[in-house]
């Protein structure tokens, strides 16, 4: 699946997107990302799957797009 990083998360991951496979839900994806980028644990972010915000653990398919987004600060 395609993972998108925004805002200050890019400072941590040093990339705007990344392809990952093998995770089947957002909880395991988060665990995987936290292992890869430990600093992610100390920042606040929301998750959107295919452009929709999610609040709870959500199943993922291989062609899903998952966005990690810090609090919005437009305007």
């Amino acid at each position, binding site marked *: 699946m395609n993972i*998108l990083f*925004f*805002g*200050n998360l890019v400072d941590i991951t040093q990339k705007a997107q990344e392809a990952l496979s093998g995770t089947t839900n957002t909880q395991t994806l988060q665990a995987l990302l936290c292992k890869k980028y430990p600093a992610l644990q100390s920042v606040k972010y929301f998750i*959107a799957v295919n*452009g929709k915000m999610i609040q709870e653990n959500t199943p993922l398919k291989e062609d899903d797009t998952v*966005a990690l*987004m*810090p*609090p*919005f*600060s*437009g*305007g």
Partner: protein
Amino acid sequence: MKANTIKDIFVDGSITPQEIAESIAQHATKKNIGAHSIFLGQVRADEKTEGVVQAIEYTTYKDMALEQMHMIREALFEKYELTCMHVYHSLGIVPAGEISLFVFVSAVHRKAAIAACTELVEAIKFQLPVWGKEILVNQNTVWKENH
């Protein structure tokens, strides 16, 4: 005048007073409009402990932002008697003193225009996936926070 298609709201760099004037002028033919409520966001040269802000660089998750904006727009047209609604948000670098957000709501009566514009500005600040990175005079950066 309700727009049912997804419109782009993003523009490269700052929004000029001239563009705002042109947008206003285009409404002279809509003679049922009695009130325009406009909000402009201008980049502040804030003095932070880390240094003075010289510009903000905006990024977005565009697909999601435009879909979100579409829903916000539809909800406001549903709630208020509006004639038209235009939103322009900058992407990329906007220097301090220049305009990064132009929100323009028109209606027959002022109360609908003002209330919808006020709600729209809040929705843009808190519901659109857009991020501002403040670039300081010393080239350091600080991520903007909305209050």
